[in-house]
């Protein structure tokens, strides 16, 4: 009898559905979510994707600070997603992203959104559908304003997202139903100050065709800020049309290419000043399972042809230094994956160390770490 002995040195083919972190998306030049690369972060663009990405727990390392989430100061967040028959559900904590201002003026600050909760529910009945409900609220009665007078600061936010995937077509609507901050603290703080997002939305659709993904997205929001007796209205919009392609070189390696054209405006309606911008970034990325326990990835991205901003005075300026290279790694331990961005630490350890200077460091091995456990 022939005996075929297959010796496998621990190779484990990972499907892309096992990847689920901001670090992976950033390393592939996609921001924190992608419209063209399959990743569980897509649930934040289209909740119907929960049907495709489920049965895992994810944590994103960072601080509990509630302001912007950056590579050097990431926000702590995480959650889990689980299937239940033909349905799936999920709970995500800490997604405190907000378009409401936190700084009203000098010495006059709003509280930032905090302790956000996202509830997901999705189903697959031939047509995959999904919904996400977003909620956050806080109150601080110990704040002080002008003259150290006690005042109450509040924040509240509510959002609803709906999505569907049918065959090669997908569509999603993300709505901010309410996002408000009341009362500013600081030596110039005022209880009546308010920063409020009017109902805002992002509507998008995508189509898969012969291995290519085409998509279009339209985002519009309006914000009102009241400081004392002065009210200012801001309006922001963005249209994006894009394409992406994933070339599966083999089951363990892939090359990504994508490009999109984006044109947007940011307008202060009250003072009548509009900033317009456009860009067309081309991104080339790679991802490969270097060993059974290590996946490496990287990307280069740069504006081509379009990439400029026009200020309210009508003056145009090209976007400087748009070339960006990112790299990342995943350490795999069976069903547990530790993702991170690499190459983000400078050569010196004195002063600003969080710089990309082409250095592979082994003390700050990875930044923006995310840990995912698939069950």
């Amino acid at each position: 009898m022939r005996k075929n002995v297959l010796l496998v040195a621990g190779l484990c083919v990972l499907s892309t559905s096992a990847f689920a972190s901001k670090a992976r998306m950033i390393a592939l030049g996609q921001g924190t979510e992608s419209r063209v690369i399959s990743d569980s972060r897509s649930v934040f663009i289209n909740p119907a994707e929960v049907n495709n990405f489920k049965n895992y727990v994810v944590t994103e390392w960072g601080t509990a600070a509630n302001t912007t989430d950056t590579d050097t100061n990431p926000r702590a967040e995480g959650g889990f997603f689980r299937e239940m028959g033909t349905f799936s559900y999920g709970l995500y904590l800490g997604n405190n992203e907000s378009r409401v201002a936190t700084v009203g003026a000098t010495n006059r600050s709003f509280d930032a959104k905090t302790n956000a909760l996202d509830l997901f529910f999705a189903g697959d009945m031939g047509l995959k559908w999904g919904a996400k409900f977003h909620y956050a609220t806080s109150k601080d009665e110990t704040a002080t304003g002008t003259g150290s007078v006690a005042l109450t600061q509040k924040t509240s936010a509510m959002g609803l997202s709906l999505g569907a995937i049918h065959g090669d077509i997908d569509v999603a609507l993300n709505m901010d139903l309410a996002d408000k901050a009341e009362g500013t603290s600081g030596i110039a703080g005022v209880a009546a100050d308010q920063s409020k997002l009017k109902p805002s939305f992002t509507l998008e659709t995508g189509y898969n065709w012969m291995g290519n993904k085409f998509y279009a997205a339209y985002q519009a929001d309006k914000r009102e800020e009241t400081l004392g007796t002065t009210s200012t209205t801001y309006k922001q919009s963005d249209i994006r049309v894009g394409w992406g392609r994933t070339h599966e070189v083999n089951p363990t390696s892939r090359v990504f290419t994508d490009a999109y054209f984006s044109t947007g405006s940011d307008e202060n309606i009250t003072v009548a000043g509009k900033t317009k911008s456009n860009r067309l970034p081309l991104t080339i990325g790679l991802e490969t399972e270097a060993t059974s326990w290590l996946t490496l990835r990287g990307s280069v991205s740069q504006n081509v042809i379009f990439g400029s901003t026009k200020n309210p005075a009508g003056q145009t300026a090209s976007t400087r230094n748009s070339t960006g290279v990112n790299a990342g790694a995943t350490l795999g331990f069976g069903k547990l994956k530790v993702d991170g961005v690499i190459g983000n630490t400078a050569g010196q350890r004195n002063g600003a160390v969080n710089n990309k200077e082409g250095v592979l460091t082994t003390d700050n091995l990875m930044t923006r770490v995310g840990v995912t456990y698939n069950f």
Partner: protein
Amino acid sequence: MKKIFIVGSALMLVSTATFASKARLQSLGEDKDGSYYISDYRNVYINPSELNTFGNKVFLEWGNTGKAVGNASLDTDSKTKAQGGMFYALPNDMKAGVILGDETDVAALTRILSSNGSNSFMQTADNVIDLFLAGKGDVNWGANLLYTQSESEVTNSRYKQHAYALRAGANKDAWNAHLLLALGAKADAPDLANTPTYKGKLGVRVGGGYDLDESNKAFAMYERYEWKQDNGTTAERIGSFNKWFTGVGHTKKITDSSTFFARLQAEMTNIKLETSTGNNTEAKITRFAVPLTVAFEHTATEWLVLRGSVGQNIHGTVEDQGLTANFGAANGPTIRTLAAARYGSSTAGNGGKKSIVNSTVVNAGMTFKFGNLELDGNIGTTDGNRAIADTATTEAADTKHGVLAFDNLMTRVGMTYNF
């Protein structure tokens, strides 16, 4: 019969033809923008027909915006510029390529030289795009188009810059030849002190090589670039950059896993800046050198390749004049420091002729190989001291002091995936 299938952990020996990065070339004592005798993807910038040599690949050079010099920036070993691209095979034995962000130092230095204002410098080439096309035939050919353009109309920050260039190359059997035409370059910064302007004239680089035998290759190159610059308070000036070199490169495969390299060449660089009405205030640098470089590359394990080089001038002189007279206290020190670092000219005094000192350079590097993915970098480029902070002109932690650091494991990291 027993059949034993062994599936390894995807590590395998890879031929040197897949190596591709600035760090590799530097470790072997070559210019990071290409070698005239060692095969590397960077050579497409010398001869685009070399694209036919390489298979499909995606390559990245880690970094950010480089070392800032006013609005200008340079790609330095300790502050690298980000760039990357892809080569892809097309039907009919053709290849295409795109590289984003490759901003050469020679172009940057000429614009810095033109910015003789109040310690600020014009915008260097930014958001550069290189497109490549190559094909095989009786004669293998290749072409590359370079394009960069950016501007700002914002009050107090106005500038404009653009540049276009065309490279073409061919190779057949033992010979190869290449041509570069710098078709036009312009830059201005009306809001900088002395409102500097820079206008490049037609520039050219021609060169070629010939395989003398399977181990030895002869090569030669000549390039000339001219430009006009105007700094507002001085008469319009004509700048010129001339360089030629000729030499021989030797490649010897010692074993299946080790290769020895050596290069001997003679080179002359002549940089001149003169007024359009006469040369009473001429500034110039003339540099002649005969560098000898010896290098090796060794596949230490199936996942690790180590390499290193030592180089030194057998003969080297540099003569400069008029640097102090032409570059004053404002921008002068920075320009003279940059020129001294690159060409060995003087940083103070009235100039003259001298030997190029401290020309002995040792470089080292390594590659981690993970199947079709390679991670290259320089090693030994981190000082023992981590506490010294950056200055305007140096990054003190990132210097060669004979240290093999394990925290800053590699610098100038390049990542290449072959598919």
